[in-house]
């Protein structure tokens, strides 16, 4: 069985160079992860022979190059959690409606549940696990400790990543501006007041450090 897109790429006369960037010939769902919706084992023998290079992607996660086999339809949060073991990124709604999965792509906040892993190839992904540098906590993390910012803290990784993104856009926000910039995260415990205290403290700390 020949992979349809490979055949069509040839027939359609696409230039090879473009398609090295272009075609994602990832193995459908042969990875071992048990959460997968549908395994399509039949594809994998061929894939290994034909497109081993394209099936694997190299992701830049938290400054490391991670090679991983990713189904085309997999979202980044899934890959991080279930293939790379980076479970700091939470999945709340899986629908871009809660912010628990917030992470940084090239320094900008995104919902990891709502972007394909293949879309972020070649871009810098930062998760909550990547904030600590040389054993030193990120100012936002320190602020969480200082303020005791969360209750159950399921929303915390997402909020923390949003705060990191926020400080990049506006290092010195007012409380209103902070609320505005953190409006893409929900807290089920309704602990917004303390979360905003944390955000203001984080701005202070990172200002002091800069």
């Amino acid at each position, binding site marked *: 069985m020949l992979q*349809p*897109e490979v055949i*069509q790429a040839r027939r*359609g006369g*696409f230039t090879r160079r*473009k398609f090295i*960037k*272009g*075609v*994602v010939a*990832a193995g*459908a*769902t042969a990875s071992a992860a048990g*959460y*997968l*919706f*549908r395994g*399509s084992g039949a594809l994998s023998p061929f894939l290994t022979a034909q497109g081993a290079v394209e099936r694997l992607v190299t992701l830049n996660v938290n400054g490391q190059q991670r090679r991983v086999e990713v*189904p*085309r*339809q*997999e*979202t980044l949060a*899934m890959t991080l959690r279930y293939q790379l073991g980076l479970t700091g990124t939470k999945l709340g*709604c*899986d*629908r*871009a*409606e809660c*912010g628990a999965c*917030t992470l940084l792509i090239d320094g*900008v*906040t*995104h*919902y990891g*549940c*709502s*972007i*394909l892993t*293949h*879309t972020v190839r070649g871009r810098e992904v930062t998760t909550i696990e990547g904030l600590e540098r040389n054993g030193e906590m990120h100012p936002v993390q320190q602020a969480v400790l200082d303020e005791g910012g969360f209750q159950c803290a399921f929303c915390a990784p997402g909020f923390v990543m*949003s705060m990191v*993104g926020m400080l990049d856009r506006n290092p010195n926000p007012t409380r209103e501006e902070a609320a505005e*910039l*953190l*409006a*893409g*995260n929900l807290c089920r415990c309704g602990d917004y007041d303390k979360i905003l205290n944390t955000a203001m403290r984080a701005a202070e700390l990172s200002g002091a450090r800069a």
Partner: protein
Amino acid sequence: MAVIRDMIPPFELYQPAEIDDALRLMDQYGDQGWVLAGGLDTFDWFKDRIKRPQAVIDLAAVEEIRGIAAGADGGLEIGAMTSLTDVADHADVQGRYPLLAEAAGLVATPQIRNQGTLGGNIVQDTRCWYYRSGWPCYRAGGNICYAATARSMNREHCIVGASRCVAVNPSDTAPALVALDAEMVVASSSGERTFPAADFFIGPDIDIERMTVLEPGDLLTRIALPAPWEGARWYFEKIRDRKSWDFSLVSVASMLRVEGGAIADARIVVNSIAPFPVRMTAVETAIRGREPNEETGQLAGEIAIEGARALRHNDYKIALTRNLVKRSIRDAA
């Protein structure tokens, strides 16, 4: 609510780097292909397994249609793949088209604006939950509108422009672009076409399964804004349940050109009350030559709701439309 599922069913994925390759792929797959921009409309469909295209054509690598540049005759051109954040933050957009910057900045949440694209925001499908639950309504090729029956929950649906289907256009940038006389530049394998924003959106009377003129194989490449009116006043307001995340219940975008105290020209556009952004031409005509004050606003509001018809749960939209249109004239700055 849709059943939460954890995995998207498989599809072929292409990431072309050139428009031509994207168009070729779109032609090849026809209605079995799906164009992916930011994916914030797309992934719900996929996760709920309601839309199951054979191939997804991810535009992320098509650099040609990302970014903002000067356009012809003092205008501005925005690539379809430009993120809503980039639109809202761009100095030229903020300086010369504040209406668009405001509208783009009020979409959903910061994360969604970082990823969602202007093109995707314009082309996005309706949010009617009967339709999005995958029921066989008119828009899905069936023969019923579940939102228009006597027992439907239709607080978010149409008060004008319905034809069998009563779903509304959810986009915040669409009314702003109509008010700014933007043009949509559409590429397909047979060439490039341009549509005035007002004609780009279509109602269910013309095609009940689509929100825009785009057919399979059509790619929105850029949005061309003409030079803005000199010294124009503008107004944008979006009413929603929560101040973040939510789609508009009613939104209004207006542009006024005021000369010697009187309105010389106007664009008044209301969205989320019809399946398309509604340009209120009758209002525009009626207020020409008048002062942009309370009285004119009152008149405009009354004209705006002529012919509006509420469904069971959305009569508040009539009052809201009247008042927003009034404010959009009285308070334009």
